[in-house]
């Protein structure tokens, strides 16, 4: 989806934060937020791709209100989808924890997705031979799916060169929607900065790993 998460190349976010050796969690609630998010796919009977897609669906203003906030809301959205909790329940419980005597709604009926897994992790073998080889010129397709994709906007329609074949893996775009693992070949594709950002761009190269369905041959 063309959502708030797809920030590559956007302007207006200002200075980068200072580099500090800060520990992974600041406030105590962030520890619990991390654990709930990390366990949420197991609780909801889903997968990592679905969790990423749930975070993408966090409303933009909430998405931009801190990492652990969007992480927690993403986990909640995914658990709502699986009928584990409802937003009304969470809000009612939050009110009660704050000392307000509000009625609590009935819990939902669990409705976990059913997607057989080909095994642990995400790396898979693909029988058919790869469509592209190292050195091939390829173009990132101009796709705008409504659902989950790992093809960011800033490379769509741009031409680059395959520099490596990565291990083939579960296809995020289908797995996130429980439409099957659908494993795909995956390629490191290198783009010249001027192809992405115009002739005035800083000189550098951008390498990104793209699944085969995202790529078209350049003829």
């Amino acid at each position, binding site marked *: 989806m063309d959502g708030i*998460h797809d920030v590559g190349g956007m302007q207006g976010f200002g200075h980068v934060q200072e580099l500090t050796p800060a520990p992974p969690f600041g406030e105590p*609630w962030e*520890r619990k937020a*991390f654990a709930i998010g*990390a366990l949420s796919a197991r609780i909801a009977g889903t997968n990592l791709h679905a969790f*990423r897609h749930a975070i993408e669906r966090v409303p933009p203003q909430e998405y931009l209100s801190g*990492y652990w906030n969007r992480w927690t809301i993403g986990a*909640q959205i995914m*658990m709502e989808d699986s009928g584990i909790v409802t937003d009304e329940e969470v809000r009612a419980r939050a009110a009660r924890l704050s000392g307000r005597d509000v009625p609590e709604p009935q819990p939902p009926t669990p409705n976990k997705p059913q997607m057989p897994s080909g095994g642990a992790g995400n790396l898979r073998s693909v029988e058919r031979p790869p469509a592209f080889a190292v050195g091939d010129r390829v173009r990132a397709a101009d796709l705008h799916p409504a659902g989950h994709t790992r*093809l960011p906007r800033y490379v769509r329609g741009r031409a680059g060169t395959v520099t490596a074949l990565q291990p083939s893996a579960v296809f995020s775009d289908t797995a996130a929607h429980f439409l099957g693992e659908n494993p795909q070949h995956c390629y490191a594709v290198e783009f010249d900065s001027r192809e992405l950002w115009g002739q005035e761009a800083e000189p550098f190269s951008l390498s990104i790993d793209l699944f085969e369905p995202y790529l078209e041959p350049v003829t």
Partner: protein
Amino acid sequence: MTSAAEHLDPALRVEALASLLSERGLIDEAIIERFVKTYEQSVGPMNGAKVVAKAWTDSDYRARLLADGTAAIAELGFKGPQGEHIVVLENSPTVHNVVVCTLCSCYPWPVLGLPPSWYKDPAYRSRIVREPRQVLREFGLDLDDQVEVRVHDSSSEVRYMVLPERPAGTESRSEEELAALVTRDAMVGVARAAAP
């Protein structure tokens, strides 16, 4: 969850969720505590620093690390979630690699732990793929124009770690002393390893 919904304090949301899930027997405090402690105490950049220090002192290991990062890292006992396939990128006087995840916060957990705040922030994610030299300057790393900059966007299940250059004047240092010079920032590619 609708966009019109009123903002709920995140700490309160977490408490409410934890309370509901624990009531339903779906999480328990002991599991949460064990999980969090792992990433506070055992899995972090100190692991990656050991990998880097070994590569600096053992040329055979360095070759194995660059050829098959996942296997060479596993030799030191580091593996697990977000580390299924790790590629190690070598920085040199002529090439500077830097890593990002523009779409979320993909990061090589077994060697670096959980990502720092700046890595997950939209400012870094949006800008490092568009003006990396300027961003690195803001972080305090001014690269010579002659240095080739390579930015790596972690968009698949591949995870990246940078092997920084060994600082000058460290020839007599032990592997353990060298590991102390290797920062998280250097292994993402936004800083150099610290000078002794």
